[in-house]
């Protein structure tokens, strides 16, 4: 099953490689991994999307907690949560495609953030499935380049992850 795990860790050199190394050494899946410093600059927050049986997920949580740099671990999938991913897509936009691309971006609540006479760059945020849907909905041959951040997640309401 797919799980989205949030990790608060010391913002120190090498902390990211400890997490990445743990996943590769123990053969766990990483679907995506994002990390950035928090408002408290001594801490980084990481979101890991992974999958595995309940036993594997339990081990992942325990092994993450065991890392000396890790302060807190929460499996967001255990409760109500929101996840968002950002995607930038460069699409061909010439002739009649130009109007069609604009319309599709609007339907998906994307924003066109760069324009040339040949292409648009569309910014799109949402759950990964929405980004997938956008890519499916447009003319495949029009896609020039895509880049995605991987998911970031946060608990709903009073589910707060803080030191």
């Amino acid at each position, binding site marked *: 099953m797919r799980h989205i795990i949030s990790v608060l*860790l*010391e913002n120190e*050199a*090498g902390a990211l*490689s*400890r997490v990445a*190394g743990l996943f590769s*050494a123990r053969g766990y899946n990483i679907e995506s991994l994002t990390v950035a410093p928090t408002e408290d600059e001594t801490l980084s927050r990481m979101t890991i999307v992974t999958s595995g049986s309940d*036993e594997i997920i*339990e*081990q992942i949580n*325990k*092994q993450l*907690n*065991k890392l*000396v*740099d*890790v*302060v807190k671990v929460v499996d967001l999938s255990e409760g109500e949560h929101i996840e968002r991913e950002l995607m930038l897509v460069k699409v061909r936009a010439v002739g009649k495609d130009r109007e069609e691309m604009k319309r599709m971006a609007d339907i998906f609540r994307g924003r066109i953030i760069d324009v040339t006479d040949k292409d648009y760059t569309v910014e799109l945020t949402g759950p990964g499935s929405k980004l997938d849907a956008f890519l499916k909905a447009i003319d495949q041959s029009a896609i020039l380049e895509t880049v995605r951040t991987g998911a970031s997640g946060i608990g709903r309401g009073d589910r707060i992850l803080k*030191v």
Partner: protein
Amino acid sequence: MQLSGAEIVVRCLQEEGIDHVFGYPGGAVLFLYDELFKQDKVKHVLVRHEQAAVHAADAYARSTEKVGVAIVTSGPGVTNAVTGIATAFMDSIPMVILTGQVPTHAIGEDAFQECDTVGITRPCVKHNFLVKDVKDLALTIKKAFYIASTGRPGPVVVDIPKDITTHKTDFDYPKSISMRSYNPVVKGHAGQIKKAVKLLLEAKRPMIYTGGGVILGNASAELAQLVKMLGFPCTNTLMGLGGFPSTDRHFLGMLGMHGTYEANMAMQHCDVLLAVGARFDDRVIGNPKHFFEQPRQIVHIDIDPASISKRVKVDVPVVGNVREVLRELVRQLEAARGGPDKEALKAWWSQIEQWRGRDCLKYDRSSAIIKPQFVIEKLYQVTKGDAFVTSDVGQHQMWAAQFYKFDKPRRWINSGGLGTMGVGLPYAMGVQMANPRATVACVTGEASIQMCIQELSTCKQYRLPLKLINLNNRYMGMVRQWQEFFHGNRYSESYMDALPDFVRLAEAYGHVGMRIEKPADVEPALKEAFARKKDLVFMDFITDQTENVFPMVPGGKGLSEMILV
């Protein structure tokens, strides 16, 4: 007064009460060695290869309750040390390894003797640090000792660039330390312990299975008290030997791949299992599917939450320091009404005695060729069971574990997790350094001993009167055994050809060498060797080439599917 980084390192070691460090100098640690030279509180032991420095410091820690310390230089110093670090990591040994690094400005430029120490050691340490500012040095070393010795212990590497050892700053060694990201649990959850008590008192066929955690957690006395109170059978893992007295009638011997028939059968057929400081290793429970075919309730006490329900799902996990948890368990058992089910226990013991009657460790005592088991039995008798015994890895290790009866913790020193050939001699050095008056024997084989043989030179320098028991069967015995059982007797590359004359080799290093070829000479030779209190004696026992270790649970098989003699 401001101190240089090198002075700070030495002062930190002094503050930590470290009396011995094991190491090998080199370019990146020259300033550090200069400071070691200027003082005599911290004694440096010069080895002949960095791997041995780490092994010796590791054994120093295993045989005492102290943190072992090793110092190596950058680049090859570090890569040579990696085997030692990984060995200590697998067996959760508290160690601090100080590694030299090229100067900070040269890091990343492929400088001479540069390697990514933090990167290379990351998967085999509990934690590691690269010190980039001399102001962080003392605190980092404090953290290293704290992390290494608390919670589930383990090795910690502190990588110190050469320029940091020359930079100066004020020295202030913190007395205590707290880290928001590292808070090991100590006390076990009282409610969980209550559940454990209930299960233990309801058990019809109970079993206590303990590992290295009892040794590392200094919980032998509490374990003995618990076993005495309950009257339950007890088995130890390879790492746990000595955690419970081997001569006690409640002890069923070691369990696992080469465990006793009675221990493995009781483990398989028990209805309530109490696991203490052990991790259900593949060499211990065999095939987990087979293990699950018998229903049983499992209580698992361990300091590391990640060890619980890793290979085997348990019913009552108790996370905490094993000594604290066992004390609470004993307290609650004393307060509980009623004791264990005496009738059921009687029936269970009579079943166990029947298994014990199988005499699974028997061997041919009338052989005209020396049987390795016989050597270990005689070693036990001659040393009156009171020696520190280190071993290398292979058949001889299993025979030592099976036939030397350890009654005290920290007496049996071997590489259980990583199974590192070559540890025996450096382990014996570390043990002898930590316990100068103790009798220290190293049980080894002609293959393992050659992996760190150069340390015979270190032994000469420091006059370490070790007794080496070389069970020489001219084969990598355990490899040969597997090839005999599972590879159609095709002894691929397991024959040790062109062996040295070990007697003359020992003599060349300035020691005493003995060759023993007849069973009748075994005991007199051992007596003579152990009487030579000041000499290192290398005893080369020419043993039976065809002897195998029994019982044996073949890979992938279940605990009760042993091959017996």
